[in-house]
């Protein structure tokens, strides 16, 4: 049997269509399974507490969480509107994040590039890093008071080390050949950093940003729990002290949404900055 060009073409078209359909079907199944998981967990939680198998006084209830959220939106919290609490927590987290990232990148590249500096400072950095940094929160509250600066400081410290170590490692991992090549092509020391060191450390730095933003929020919330006049952390402590699990969950839900939004924005930034990478790799990252 011989195949004509047309036969081959129709067969290829059919195969392509089939694989596209399989792809779509798979995606629908995945989404359906995701929704089912959510429904089972939330629904189960609701039913178990309604049937009193677990005590809603300790575990709260999904409907209670929704009621609490509505109450916050309509009447505000004890410390002012819910939007103000969110705004303050985000302000603290973002400031800590921005300063921490900037400081981490600058110090990481400096110490990664200048051997002398890294030899001098590495034991101290290791020592500070060994400290559970949350305990610094209490010190910052004492130093900087109950305002937002103590929370920004705690966020900063948490973010700084994550970004610093990644930037430092990224600089150390730069392909020696790339550096030798641009040096021979005539690059000055600054040009080497700008054209080779920074871009090649960038994928390390960007990878650290995902974790770093989580830490920024942790810093802000923990700082608020330790002592504050406003913010989501304060809302959580208050709810906890009033034996109101729904309030704790409602605040947690808000934080979760904020963190996921930030994560999504960072992924967008990452995809934009690393658009030069081979396609397969970016797809794997996005999945």
């Amino acid at each position, binding site marked *: 049997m011989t195949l004509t060009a047309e036969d081959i073409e129709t067969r290829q078209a059919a195969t392509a269509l089939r694989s596209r359909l399989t792809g779509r079907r798979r995606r629908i199944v995945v989404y359906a399974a995701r929704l089912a998981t959510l429904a089972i967990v939330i629904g189960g939680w609701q039913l178990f507490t309604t049937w009193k198998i677990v005590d809603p006084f300790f575990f709260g209830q999904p409907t209670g969480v929704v009621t609490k959220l509505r109450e916050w939106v309509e009447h505000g919290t004890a410390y002012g509107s819910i939007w103000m609490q969110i705004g303050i927590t985000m302000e603290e987290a973002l400031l800590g994040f921005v300063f921490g990232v900037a400081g981490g990148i600058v110090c990481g590249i400096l110490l990664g590039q200048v051997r002398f500096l890294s030899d001098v400072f590495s034991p101290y950095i290791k020592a500070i890093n060994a400290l559970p940094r949350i305990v610094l929160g209490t010190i910052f509250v004492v130093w900087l008071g109950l305002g937002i600066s103590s929370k920004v400081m705690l966020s900063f410290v948490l973010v700084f080390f994550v970004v610093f170590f990644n930037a430092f490692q990224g600089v150390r991992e730069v*392909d020696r*050949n*790339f550096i*030798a*090549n*641009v*040096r*021979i*092509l*005539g*690059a*000055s020391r600054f*040009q080497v950093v700008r*054209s*080779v060191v920074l*871009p*090649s450390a*960038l994928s390390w730095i960007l990878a650290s940003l995902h974790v770093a933003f989580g830490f920024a929020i942790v810093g802000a919330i923990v700082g608020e729990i330790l002592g504050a006049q406003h913010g989501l952390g304060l809302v959580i402590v208050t709810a906890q002290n009033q034996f109101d699990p729904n309030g704790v969950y409602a605040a947690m839900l808000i934080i979760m949404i904020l963190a996921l939004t930030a994560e999504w924005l960072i992924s967008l930034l990452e995809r934009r900055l*690393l658009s*030069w*990478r*081979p396609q397969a790799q970016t797809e794997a990252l996005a999945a």
Partner: protein
Amino acid sequence: MQHNTFIGGYGGSSPRQTEPNEVFRSDTGAGEPGSRGIELSGITKRFRTPDGNAFTALRDMNLTVEPGQFCAVVGPTGCGKSTALTLVAGLDRPSAGTLRVGGTPVNGIASGTSFMFQTDALLPWKTVLANVAMGPLFHGVPKKEAHAKAREWLRVVGLSGFEGHHPHQLSGGMRKRVSLAAALINEPSILLMDEPFGALDVQTKAIMSNELLTLWDQTRPSVMFVTHDLEEAIALADRVAVITAGPGTVKAVYDVDLPRPRGAVQEIRFEPRFLELHQQIWDSLREEVERAYARTTSIPEGEGS
């Protein structure tokens, strides 16, 4: 005799080979404007190994590349030929000996020298155009001018239309062309090449070799071309230096008197004179290759020196 130098065409052993040799010498002669020679005398390079011992990569190496000459350096794996190139490039300093480029001692990286690496040294996050334009940009040429020049060089190496691609979107051979354009755009008087076509398949390698010769012929920089492919060395070079198994030193130097232009490197391999030279040089190289091979397969003898 450790340093046995054979110079074809000057020994007078065969009058037949004297003539073409002189002909080609006259047009590569030292008078070439802008060309600089390379001179290694008594170069020794020792490295400190992580366990604190000294490792000698090169020992008392002497080699001269005349201005505008294409010199191939062949030797077994690990004989220090790449180390010699990094020294000439100024990326590293010799432990002993003097190294001159264009008559002046090498003291760090100098402009006028280009290097083509064995592995890809193209920056993966830059486009092809930006990769080629790097050289002029580092030298302070305005961006527009540098890009125009890069475009021109990409046309020369046959990659017009690929300016906006990233290196990973190109084949191995195309990436080598980009590297070549990036190296030549600075109009070097010294071109150092470290097994530049080593990773390519045989056909692509032959094509790239032909193009390299054509481009070299237009600007005539002095070339030091490291390879372990003897056929490639003879087909391309004016002079072939054989390096001993490490620590490397020059065992013998052969002048290749095949007339230029050489034409296709695939065909020159069948010329009687090519085969004759190949036989001669291989006799000398084989010993070193065997020694290097024996070292990797048996228990290493103590590093005596």
